[in-house]
């Protein structure tokens, strides 16, 4: 993958550079930021995170499994007291609830990992340690014919450093 990496000290300069790059139809833009900021999200106009689907599915599976395992155990080893039904949904709600939280939380984390594509073994191109420290970064995927144009946009908006990577 070939592209240009720009580092910025100020957030407004970063936002303007993103807007300019998008205007010039650079499609594949990655922004690095030490902390999440809404203005970067707005500038990128990224779709909503899909983590919520993992949460919903995990939670539903958990609550179903919780009730099921409690009812199955009661039927498998019936403790009949006073002729009452062996499976009692009220106390089993505790097990259903706890497993809903457990499965829902774990699948949320799994969803976050899968969608963010972590764990990642190599840092690949287009990253600089300063992006976790204090600076913002923009990585634009650009073919050989558009590298000069992308570099120009990043420089014009006050990038501290611009470098080509592949």
């Amino acid at each position, binding site marked *: 993958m070939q592209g240009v990496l720009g580092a910025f*000290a*100020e*957030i*407004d*300069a970063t936002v303007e550079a993103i807007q300019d790059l998008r205007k010039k139809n650079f499609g594949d833009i*990655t922004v*690095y*930021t*030490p*902390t*999440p*900021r*809404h*203005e970067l*999200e707005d500038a990128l106009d*990224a779709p*909503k*995170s*899909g*983590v*919520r689907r993992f*949460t919903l599915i995990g939670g539903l599976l958990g609550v179903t499994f*919780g009730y099921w*395992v409690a009812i199955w*155990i*009661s039927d*498998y*080893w019936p*403790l009949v007291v006073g002729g009452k039904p062996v499976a*009692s949904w009220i*106390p089993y709600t*505790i*097990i259903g*609830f*706890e*497993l809903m*939280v*457990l499965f*829902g*939380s*774990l699948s*949320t*984390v799994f*969803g*976050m*990992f899968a*969608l*963010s*594509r*972590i*764990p990642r073994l*190599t*840092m690949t191109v287009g*990253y600089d*340690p*300063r*992006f*976790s*420290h*204090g600076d913002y970064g923009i990585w634009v995927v650009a073919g050989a014919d558009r590298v000069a144009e992308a570099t120009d946009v990043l420089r014009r908006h006050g990038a501290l450093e611009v470098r080509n990577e592949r």
Partner: protein
Amino acid sequence: MAPPRRAPERERYPNIPTADNRLPGVRDYEQVDRDVIATLSPTLGWFAALGLAILALLLGIVAWTYQIYEGLGAAGYQPPVMWGVYIVSFVFWVGIGHAGTLISAILYLFRAGFRTTIYRAAEAMTVFAVMTAGLFPILHLGRPWKFFWLIPYPNWRLIWPNPKSPLVWDVFAILTYLTVSATFFYVGLIPDIAVLRDQERNPIRKRIFAVLALGWRNSDREWRHFTRAYLFLAAFATPLVLSVHSVVSFDFAMALTPGWHATIFPPYFVAGAIFSGIGMVFTIIIPIRKYFKLEHMVTINDLDAAAKLCLFTSMVVGLAYITEFQVAWMSGNAVEQEYFWNRVFGQWWWAAWIMLICNMVLPLSLFSQKLRRNTSWLFILSIFINIGMWFERFVIVIPSLSHEFEPWQWGGYHPTWVDYFILIGSFGWFFMWFLLFIRQLPVMAISEVKEIIPPKLRHAAVGHHHLTHGEVAEPRVTGTIRPAGGTH
């Protein structure tokens, strides 16, 4: 004519606006990294404290080994009191954990800004406190190596646990709580470990941080999914924390024993848990703040706000204590009335009064703003709260069991050296993990603290100056600049 003389205005601090937290003593993102990373170099004092914690843990291990060899009789159980220090300590440690989740998850959903700088230490406290609590039911078993029989799994004995038993609910609740709080803790740590990875010079530590950071790069894609996942985890942890101590309270409330069989137990236990946990947060955060010189990050305003929370939960707990007496009085149940009379004037009167004074009376001092902003008093008070809350659980467990329905059932209880050593050992275990944590991982959530620092701007920089430590910050007009933690 000279202006009329007016009395000098009393020095007043503003009430803390919850969502609008500012750190005037922090200039920029880089300073956050520097100040937090500076806490990671071990010192002689830290080694001494760690040594002490390990020594305490060894005492506990010795006592437990002796108990396994001798049997549970070594632990001072005397019929009818077959729940003793271990169950008291189990409830105590689960309770300690609750404030961590309250601060990290519930206050996150409520947008309470003062949580930002204290939540990481509180969340670590939760994980280690639940790890400690989980040991006690195992210590309380005659054959502790069979503890896994409580988990429903296919086995050759074809025996399954009874899902109507509160002890089985406990297993589900505590294991879920431990797993979810540890997950929440680690997920929150990932971006901060990435900071350590990028700043570390020692190649071995850098490699370890690189593995733990999972290749986190601070990209917009990662942050987008991270903030969503964090929000959902907080939303799961919130009802979870309420359910866990409710389930712990069912261990008591499901029995017919006088003093236990009450519908007030779940909210009473949850409020008590949060109160005790906030006490422990003060015990931990005040020395950290002073020792690591982080006064400009954990500001006095943050402590003031947490102290208000402490006062509120203390009053909820106090109300629960009084309600218990009122319910017994109005029940017309002679056994219940006898039990509550015995609680404050009978054989365990001293324990009940320690509880009432430490948990109900002393925290009322926090109505004074001066005391809420006095860290020495907050620390001293937190020790009293820790003691008071341990005795609250003692008062719940021991007097009820030693004073049941019939006078011939009444008895006494004398903990032995084994009980005391294991109790000391549990503090050693907890503080060992906590001390290891504060020197290896960031004690403050670096990326979340950065959210409340105004970002550098190219265009609005004219006329702006960075505030020095102690200067009062005025709200800055930053256009559309706003942090993006959580809900979108």
